[in-house]
């Protein structure tokens, strides 16, 4: 998938609409702290309630294929090699070599130095290359280094940039710093799509997640993303629920759609379907599309493939029948 013209247009920077809010630290703080609070118990109960939805037959087949198309197949390890990234990219293009009808994933997600390798393998397959940048995962580096990191990835051919916010600045209430950081990284992205990672496991409260969501959306992020995968807890249903409410409310106010990407800890088809149910019921069916919802995952894909094979053949095959890349 390459960013389509319609999605580029509809996620154009929101600058202008929120000028008054981001004018000063105090006006931004007033706005973020004026957002309706989140009741923890109620939010978790709602997420748990949606997780009991039961999906059957045709919808399940649809959901599995959709989930595969939404996967950002990820490897973010110190031990990554060019060989590993090439293998992963091949898998992203043809997840199930035994079944050509199996769709490709949305993207592969790698460190910036692996972007060129991934791009070379993926070519014009339509599978995007996403690169984590801005001193991922901690985000603890000077601003010019973060921007250089971003430009480096974009120049190497990244279609999407997954940046991390400065959680230290956020938690100490320097919201404007976080806002400007996102704006600058977005500029450095050029045509590449920007996903903004909050690391919700470090933000801790749902109120913070909601504030971070609005901050990132106002700064022009194309996607808001839960986690790096390096901190526990990573993505959870309630956190994703809050973010889905935020993108829904943001569209109500501005007409612009922003995507959501839970990442880390989503391992099974059952989990993925719970997320899709939540997307459908909270944000609405418009978000049931790889342009607007992604899974940051590695092991999830094989479980999706196993369930997919089960749906078509009626039998489970063992893990040895699926590639381990």
């Amino acid at each position, binding site marked *: 998938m390459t960013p389509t013209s319609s999605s580029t247009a509809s996620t154009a920077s929101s600058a202008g609409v929120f000028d008054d809010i981001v004018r000063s630290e105090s006006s931004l703080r007033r706005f973020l702290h004026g957002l309706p609070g989140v009741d923890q118990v109620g939010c978790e109960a709602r997420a748990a309630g949606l997780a009991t939805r039961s999906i059957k037959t045709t919808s399940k087949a649809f959901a599995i294929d959709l989930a595969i198309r939404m996967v950002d197949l990820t490897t973010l390890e110190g031990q990554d090699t060019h060989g590993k990234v090439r293998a992963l990219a091949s898998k992203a293009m043809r997840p199930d070599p035994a079944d050509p009808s199996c769709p490709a994933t949305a993207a592969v997600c790698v460190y910036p130095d692996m972007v060129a390798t991934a791009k070379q393998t993926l070519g014009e397959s339509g599978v995007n290359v996403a690169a984590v940048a801005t001193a991922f995962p901690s985000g603890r580096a000077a601003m010019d280094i973060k921007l250089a990191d971003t430009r480096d990835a974009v120049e190497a051919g990244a279609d999407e940039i997954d940046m991390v916010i400065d959680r230290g600045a956020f938690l100490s209430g320097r919201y404007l710093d976080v806002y400007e950081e996102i704006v600058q990284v977005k500029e450095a992205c050029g045509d590449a799509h920007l996903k903004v990672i909050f690391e919700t496991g470090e933000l801790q409260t749902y109120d913070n997640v909601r504030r971070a969501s609005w901050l990132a959306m106002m700064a022009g992020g194309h996607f808001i993303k839960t986690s790096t995968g390096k901190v526990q807890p990573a993505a959870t249903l309630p956190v994703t629920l809050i973010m889905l409410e935020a993108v829904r409310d943001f569209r109500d106010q501005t007409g612009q759609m922003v995507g959501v990407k839970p990442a880390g800890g989503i391992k099974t088809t059952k989990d993925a379907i719970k997320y899709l149910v939540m997307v459908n019921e909270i944000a609405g069916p418009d978000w*049931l599309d790889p342009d607007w919802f992604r899974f940051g995952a590695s092991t999830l894909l094989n479980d999706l493939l196993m369930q997919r094979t089960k749906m078509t053949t009626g039998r489970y095959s063992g893990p040895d029948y699926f590639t381990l890349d």
Partner: protein
Amino acid sequence: MSNIFEYAPAPESRAVVDIKPSYGLFINGEFVDGHGTSFKTVNPATEEVLAEVAEANDADVDEAVKAARRAYTRVWSRMSGAERAKYLYRIARIIQERGRELAVLESIDNGKPIKESRDVDIPVVAAHFFYYAGWADKLEHSGYGSTPLGVAGQVIPWNFPLLMLAWKIAPALACGNTVVLKPAETTPLTALLFAEICQQADLPPGVVNIVTGAGDTGRAIVSHPDVDKVAFTGSTEVGKAIARAVAGTEKKVTLELGGKAANIVFDDAPLDQAIEGIVNGIFFNQGHVCCAGSRLLVQESVADEVMERLKRRMATLRVGDPLDKNTDVGAINSAEQLAKIRELSDIGEAEGAERWSTPCELPTNGYWFAPTVFTGVSQAHRIAREEIFGPVLSVLTFRTPSEAVEKANNTPFGLSAGVWTDKGSRILSMANRLRAGVVWANTFNKFDPTSPFGGYKESGYGREGGRHGLEAYLKGADS
């Protein structure tokens, strides 16, 4: 962009339940024939006749009370609390083991979604038996003494058939009383299955007697001279009749009656969760809940936003087959109740309130009513004053906390209320000023056996649940 992400039907299997063609009365540990005119119980979702059920006449009720009295004097009141507890624990465990069967049967007979009978009703039923089993050998620490009253006559409604049974039977038995219980005529099946569970648990004969029938059977129980205690949950109208019937007798009475609860949303509330609470408050169990949040009081400054969000959320409610695991709102329990809901809703419209119902398709057979909300309602409207007991919400607005309290308390009822705000101090001050037995803060319709439940004013008297619930079944500390 695809929109085919629809939920295919996911029905819970009916195979786990075995509905007999006809049922007798459960008296003295055995099923016996009734001598009244038997009646049919139907599945409200399909209008299918489920079973023929015996009606207990005065003589049958007399037999049941005699059996209860015998069991009381010879066995149950003499048994140590620890021994009684063993039976209650055993019943609680059997309820858990047969939970799926009970849940499916409850949904078939009552019309409530399986999601609720499976995740709320049956687990809370088991929890009640476990909780009161724990009290049975500790009554001297209850503050109400440890002397039982005798035979309890109990009449329960159709909205939570087995749960109301548990609320009545568990504390009664824990305290050493025996019972004669009448389930509602439209939902007798789980009570009769509970009778089987009593047999399975080897409960001594006569400790629990279940007699089925309608108003006449209930009257026979309440007015029976050898009944020491009357416990009733149901309409305020019948509650008043019972209060009159027992006036001047030695009988102790607890009544848990109607409600018209105010669910109060302040402008600083966690709005998304408040919307869930409003939905849960009025559409849980099709609104067949005495403590339902049927009056939404919303602060004017957020009224438009709340209504917009509420309607969007209501549009996602799935109305239909109660046995489908994805169903949120099931069937109205009876044709009679449906007619009452329709009548009051039509009156609401005629009186000038604005009606909005979710655009959902309703099944052709059975009794159904789409989730409905009325805006522009004033205190003078009948839909703001009378209990509708259906999925119908009346929305009023307020400007200040005092106005919210005034409006919330301006009702003959006083069973429950809800407060939604992020401000802890406001929750406490509101809870002090609201004249309601239960005040929920940032949640609604939560039930737990450790928490007492009961009303002010026309919502009845006495408390059920918790330590307070023991008072209704003990003679008191001085006796």
